[in-house]
């Protein structure tokens, strides 16, 4: 079943998405590094994180960052595996493992962001 699906899929959509997410991540990552390091406390204290997380748009950016980073990274790893001749059961296992790890860590990241309280 999987074998036939793979032979039809040229990967062109995945290729475009990889580029779009990549460019978005460049912008997010530069912003992230500057924001986290312009002051030594900005990235390393609970108070600073709490203050930032009072803005919902900041939470939305963080959640977007996790999803884009996870997708782009794991799709990249999958692209590396696709360079090698793998048996269909190996492809299926690797892809399943990547998807499970991706979803699990994304959920963990979401849980962390949502656990930070809104303080009035």
């Amino acid at each position, binding site marked *: 079943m999987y074998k036939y699906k793979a032979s039809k899929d040229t990967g062109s959509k995945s290729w475009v998405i990889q580029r779009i997410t990549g460019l978005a991540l460049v912008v997010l990552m530069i912003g992230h590094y500057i924001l986290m390091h312009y002051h030594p406390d900005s990235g390393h204290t609970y108070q600073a994180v709490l203050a930032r997380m009072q803005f919902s748009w900041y939470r939305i950016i963080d959640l977007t960052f996790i999803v884009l980073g996870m997708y782009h990274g794991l799709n990249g790893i999958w692209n590396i595996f696709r360079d090698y001749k793998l048996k269909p059961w190996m492809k299926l296992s690797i892809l399943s493992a990547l998807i499970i790890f991706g979803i699990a860590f994304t959920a963990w990241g979401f*849980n962390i962001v949502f656990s930070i309280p809104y303080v009035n």
Partner: protein
Amino acid sequence: MESGTGTKSTYKNIKIFDQKNWISENLSYKKDDGSWAWILHRITGIALIAYLFLHIYSLSPLTQGEAAFNAKMATFASPLFMVIEWLLFAFVLFHSLNGIRIVIVDWADGAKYHKQLYRLSWVLGIILFLAMGALMFSHELKKLF
């Protein structure tokens, strides 16, 4: 279609990849700027996704409140970890700048200039790396003087 005659002698001149010695075969393969860009893009990419997993794990004490988080962060605020974070930025920069290069190469006429773009990404990367170093360590340096 191929005529069939003379293919044997043609194939004799082609160097075949020696599967058993794949490490030395890969190492001895002649590499130009594009090959290095490809190799380094993979290495930095793998490192960055590994770091993303680590990053989510290391921020997980946020769910346990202020004391747990600050205790964990005390480790990461040390000068050694700041240097590691700075070096990580080198990986981020290479992957970002080479990623932009890949987009330019794939799209439009970038393939004509891919070696120049590679060198340009190194120049820009080193400048931005030093700029980030100045941003990250300016507060530490001010404390010293």
